[in-house]
């Protein structure tokens, strides 16, 4: 079963939230949809869920056109950013809400609720109300409510954004593992590029309602299709310098090099060899497992350099940088990749 956007557009008055979105999610795939806030990623998900009607275009599950179907006939389950647990119902009632209101056989619903709860490790919490649960537990209840439906596709709208960083990392792994074992399509919307990179089988990058690039994490990271993708993915982001600057290139282009593809060359102490960049260390950001040097070149261009932990460099030190030529990205000034 695949899931497909066919030239889907959505506008609110003059605001174009989605423009001609053309995107296919493969069977069993976890597609991470990433982009800055207001890029249309949530709109895309809501169109998929049936909570918004597209202005034009079609949405298909397999060969079935679901564009006009109401949300509950689409066989999708959604996990919302604020989780949307019913505050007046216990965890158990929240999970069994769908089966109950659809008047499904109650012993079957009870069995499925128990099975899902056990799988997520919340079977001891089922009689608590949402406000008696921790953030992580609430998040599991929301996940369980989606899973009890056994849908064709899971739609997740930044479900981890309310968790603290440590819990978020664990939850990420858990969701990926659940996804693998369930095998249903998952569309995971996030603004966090690290989350998208670590979770997605493929990543779709959106900006201003338009799909910028879709591909595996390695593809979008190593071969960004345009300046936006290059600048959006990666932390710290790619160094982008107009052509003819310290990173070379023709005028009219923009040259990009990721911080980890700039290497410190400790051997050159005297004259700077051709192709090397001389710079002065401005800020040293020690992140434990790595160090990021923010340096300033002779022509005042600022670059970020990723280097080893416990770097000996201090602000004011002179450094010489070598560019990994095979990892130089060149873009047209207008934004698209030139090579």
């Amino acid at each position, binding site marked *: 079963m695949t899931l497909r956007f066919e030239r889907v557009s959505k506008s609110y008055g003059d605001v174009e939230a989605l423009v001609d979105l053309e995107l296919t999610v493969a069977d069993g795939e976890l597609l991470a949809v990433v982009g800055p806030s207001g890029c249309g990623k949530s709109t895309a998900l809501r169109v998929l*869920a*049936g*909570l918004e009607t597209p202005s034009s275009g079609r949405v298909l599950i397999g060969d079935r056109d679901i564009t006009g179907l*109401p*949300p*509950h*006939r689409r066989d*999708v*389950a*959604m996990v*919302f*950013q*604020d*989780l*949307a647990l*019913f*505050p*007046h*119902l216990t965890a158990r009632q929240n999970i069994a*809400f*769908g089966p109950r*209101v*659809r008047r499904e056989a109650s012993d079957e619903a009870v069995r499925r609720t128990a099975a899902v709860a056990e799988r997520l490790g919340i079977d001891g919490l089922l009689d608590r*109300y949402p406000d008696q649960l921790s953030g992580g537990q609430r998040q599991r209840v929301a996940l369980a*409510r989606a899973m009890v439906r056994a849908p064709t596709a899971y739609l997740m709208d930044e479900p981890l954004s309310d968790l603290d960083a440590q819990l978020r990392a664990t939850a990420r792994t858990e969701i990926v593992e659940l996804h693998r074992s369930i095998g249903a399509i998952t569309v995971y919307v996030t603004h966090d590029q690290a989350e998208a990179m670590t979770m997605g089988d493929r990543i779709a990058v959106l900006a201003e309602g338009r799909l910028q690039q879709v591909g595996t994490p390695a593809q979008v990271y190593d071969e960004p299709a345009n300046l936006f993708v290059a600048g959006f993915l990666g932390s710290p982001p790619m160094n982008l310098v107009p052509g003819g600057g310290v990173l070379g290139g023709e005028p009219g282009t923009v040259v990009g090099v990721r911080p980890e593809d700039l290497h410190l060359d400790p051997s050159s102490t005297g004259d700077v060899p051709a192709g090397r960049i001389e710079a002065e260390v401005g800020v040293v950001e020690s992140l434990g497992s790595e160090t990021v040097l923010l340096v300033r070149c002779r022509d005042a261009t600022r670059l970020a350099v990723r280097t080893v932990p416990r770097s000996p460099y201090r602000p004011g030190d002179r450094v010489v940088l070598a560019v990994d030529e095979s990892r130089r990205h060149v873009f047209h000034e207008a934004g698209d990749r030139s090579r």
Partner: protein
Amino acid sequence: MSDSVGVERARTPRSAPRSAWLFLLPYAVGTLLLVLLPAVLTLRYAFTDFTGLSGGRFTGLDNLRRLVDDPFFAASLRASAFHVAMAVPLRLVAAVGVALLLAAPRRGGRWYRVAAYLPTVVPDIALALLFLWVLNPVYGPLNQVLGAVGLPEPAWLSSPWGARVGVVMMLAFPIGEAFVVVLATRRAISPRLYEAAALEGIGPARQLRHITLPILAPVLVLLAVRDTVLMLQASFVPAYLLTDGGPARATLYLPVYIYDQAFEFLGFGYSAMVTLALIGFTLVLVAAQVLLVRRWRVLR
């Protein structure tokens, strides 16, 4: 030394600084003079033959015996009971209905909300005078409309049930406070809850039953209790202006009867006893509501 005392003080709320008492003083004086003192006096007068001018002899349970045998009191209690039974549900349903209708953002929504609140700022007396005209059987607009569509035209204020219903109709309009409370509570419910429900196939009608009302429930219980207390007391002005307790004691609500006894018949002692009865009746009704709420598991 003084430091440690300060710390000790901060920890025990009983030894609050003197300025705290100063801030409390206006309220304390008000509560004492306007609530506690009258309450104690009422309790005392209830067992005397005080007329407001003279007397004040302790008469034991005489007033209570009189209360039990008093047909006017029985009628008054009945009138108040019917009033609460009609007015509280109607006012609550009206407030909730209007609030839910006007909760969603819409063009000109604020003007509708102002309109819904407006009767609440109209003084009771003005509203009562307005309803004297509205309910006039000959030239009142209500009967003209009823007559125009071929419905019976009741003699509103001159028939017992007409008068009771008339008073309730008037009080169905000043519902602004409950309206605002429900509106605010409804607006605080995340739209995601409705979307989550829509994904399970729950349409608007069932959303009301499965989401909106259960989440509003604590507030609704509070409003029902509050309105019960209010309706037992606020029926005074409309009754006094529209019906003066009649016809046939149909609107001789407890506050009206208390007023009559105290200031028309100079039966201060006896009216104090009726006041105690009103307080008792209020407590019984509120307790019944609380018990029903528990029994029906309205709250989680």
